[in-house]
């Protein structure tokens, strides 16, 4: 399964990664190799086989909606590159 530079650019955009031209070519080649190897799974007849997204038979876990102690605001923002007055700051969005 060979993928094109355009495919790489499209996926990089979806993943919010800015790639250099060198990176694009390397990823094009390497992703093609991995996807080529992955093609063997298409040989398997899986008609009627359900999907497994998780190894456990999960059900929703509920708890009572009671307030509990939480972290102080200044600790929560302590790892942010840019925070002010208890808020995270970012460049302009619109």
């Amino acid at each position, binding site marked *: 399964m060979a993928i094109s530079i355009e495919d790489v650019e499209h996926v990089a955009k979806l993943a919010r990664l800015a790639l250099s031209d060198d*990176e694009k070519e390397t990823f094009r080649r390497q992703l093609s190799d991995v996807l080529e*190897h992955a093609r*063997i*799974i298409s040989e398997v007849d899986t008609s009627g086989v359900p999907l497994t997204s998780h190894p456990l038979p*999960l059900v929703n876990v509920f708890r009572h909606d009671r307030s509990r102690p939480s972290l102080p605001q200044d600790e929560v923002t302590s790892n942010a*590159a840019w925070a002010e007055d208890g808020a995270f700051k970012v460049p302009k969005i619109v």
Partner: protein
Amino acid sequence: MEINFQEAVEIADQIKKKEYSAVEATEAFLARIEEVEPKVKAFINVSAEVARERAAGIDTRIAAGEDPGRFGGVPIAIKDVLSTRGVPTTCGSRMLEGFIPVYDATVVQRINDAGTVMLGKANMDEFAMGSSTENSYFGPTRNPWDLERVPGGSSGGSAAAVAAGEAPWALGSDTGGSIRQPAALCGIVGMKPTYGLVSRYGLVAFASSLDQVGPLTRSVRDCAALLGIIAGHDPCDSTSIPEPAPDYLAFLKGEVKGLKAGVVKELSSEGIEPGVLERFNATVETLERLGVDCEEVSLPSFSYGLSAYYLIAPAEASSNLARFDGVRYGYRAAGESEDVWEMYDRTRSEGFGGEVKRRIMLGTYALSAGYYDAYYAQAQKIRTLIMRDYGRAWESYDALVCPTSPSVAFKLGEKTDDPLTMYLSDICTIPVNLAGIPALSLPCGLSEGLPVGFQIMGPPMSEMKILDVAYALEREIGFDARPPMEG
């Protein structure tokens, strides 16, 4: 020096008997770290002062006649993927350089409650993606058995630290073999528990349906002890199994006579190095001598495990790693950005290394419109088939066995240019994660002077039985877990 190669359970006993103090134990390991760390580089960060203070606190409690915890004063290394309050947690990534967690992972809380003393944070492949620890932003870890070789990965720092006598035991995480493969390559014991047995709260997520925290130890007794500390229900993890965990160490007997084991044909013939295969076959014979009935079993879907994994795990990773956007924590690209989108793009491009970008790209591709059914959905169906193959096997066998890794430790740089070849290192360990079952890697001897791992797999929640098989084998094999390092 001897304390550095003692079992953790022995160290706990010696401290209780006041043969030496918690401070003396911690100092012995800090001294060993100082001695060999320039060569091994198992740690990203050694938190010596935190360790000394904690060890002194344990000694004060012992002197006052208080209970210091079941493993009071025993040092431990923690993979840098687990959140440690006040101690930097990087995940081996530039993205989290300087990040200081504001809470402890549940497993960290539990090892603290047991009285252990954290020595520092162990090196790893960036965001646990890799099989050699060469993907760490902070540089590779070396294998104590041969410093020109990799320790395996992604928990390579944890495994190397234990093998080199820098820590008696360590915590790691395993998404596709990241505890078992480095344990095998470094000649120690490593276990991936049943999915949901150990809390993932405070574990930086890679692939949430596959990740589990587990022990890397010098012996099977230590493995049982450390698993006993960290296992059990946690309300902070919605995938945590709501059952108490048994006291594995207390119940460990090593009685295996009459058990039945299946040797997985698909994982113990083609593609396995001859020297590894020889040690593996010899260990199967040892198992038979111990009274375990062994026969070959074919699990055909396992041939597709690797391909399914390298679609499912990157798909989950691409979603999990979307949180690293330079806003709430972690790296943010320096300088002005035009708008928030440019800031995201630059931050993620500068903060993530090559392998992480590759997996995010692969996962995003597998999930994107037009390819979802052919790749991601088909991989999830293969996952169902692998679980069915295991289910059928458990009707006839108590355990399944195969080599842990298809090769012994390889040379640094040998596989870094070819991701697909690197991915093949995980071929024997991956089916376990896809099915959510427990498995353990036990050192079973040397090939060309390098350790070989023997993998024992069992049905969900069969940790006790797996540990018993490993314990029986360990006593019979008598592997010397001390690498021939100078000093």
